């Protein structure tokens, strides 16, 4: 292993925190979606690191399944965003208060 496992985990935690920051701070719904992708990738990195450390292939199979899930999620999510934009003419989540009241 090139580096100790803890450095990989800290890198993964940093990436996940940056993704959470994007979801909390940004108002553009596409950027929020990209931050979710960033978080999924951070988890993938941790899984690959653990898989390498334990010399076990299961983690990499999980990463494969997470990638499948990400592809499905992106296709449905972007379709929802496009339908939302067609109806409301905005991507700002502050103006999407359809379910308020």
């Amino acid at each position, binding site marked *: 292993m090139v*580096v100790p496992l803890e450095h990989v985990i800290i890198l993964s935690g940093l990436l996940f*925190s940056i993704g959470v920051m994007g979801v909390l701070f940004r108002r553009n719904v596409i950027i929020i979606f990209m931050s979710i992708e960033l978080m999924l990738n951070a988890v993938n990195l941790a899984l690959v690191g653990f898989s390498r450390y334990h010399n076990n*292939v299961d983690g*990499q199979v999980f990463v494969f399944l997470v990638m499948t899930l990400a592809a*499905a999620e992106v296709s*449905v999510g972007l*379709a929802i965003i496009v339908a939302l934009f067609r109806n409301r003419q905005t991507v700002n989540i502050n103006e999407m208060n359809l379910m308020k009241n």
Partner: protein
Amino acid sequence: MTLSLLFYIISTLTIGSALLVVLNRNAVYSAVLLVFTFFNLSILYLLLEAYFLAVLEIIIYAGAIMVLFLFVIMLFNVGKEQVLPKIMSFQRAVSLFLLVIFFTGVSLFTIQGVQDLHQPAGSASIGNVTAIGEALFSKYLFPFEIASILLLVALIGTVYLAKRKI
């Protein structure tokens, strides 16, 4: 030694580009920087000897998902996001505080909780396609089939959502 140096350089690049993805005002720049982040992550997978996943990362994320994102961004033609009003700054401070606490917790648990992370793992024969394929088609056959059903459901859902009137 050179490889570990490369790991740290690539991690710095990954963190920097991920920060720029989040902090950039222009959505197109964010998407391109996210592609750069995925390429860096692919190099990290190579350094962790997960060769199959490194290729898959580029093909699926940089090749398929980000192209879809760029299509949607170009379709909308949204300008730059305007600066947030001043009222949000308190919520911003609170979320930043919670974030720092979260990251400190992860780091502390990693550094203190597990002490024997430095021991080197044995020879790696796990990253190649043969090992992953064997695991995928024997031990994880059922999740693999469920994943195909998931993709089918996503396909049907996308076609339904793309209707003219919804």
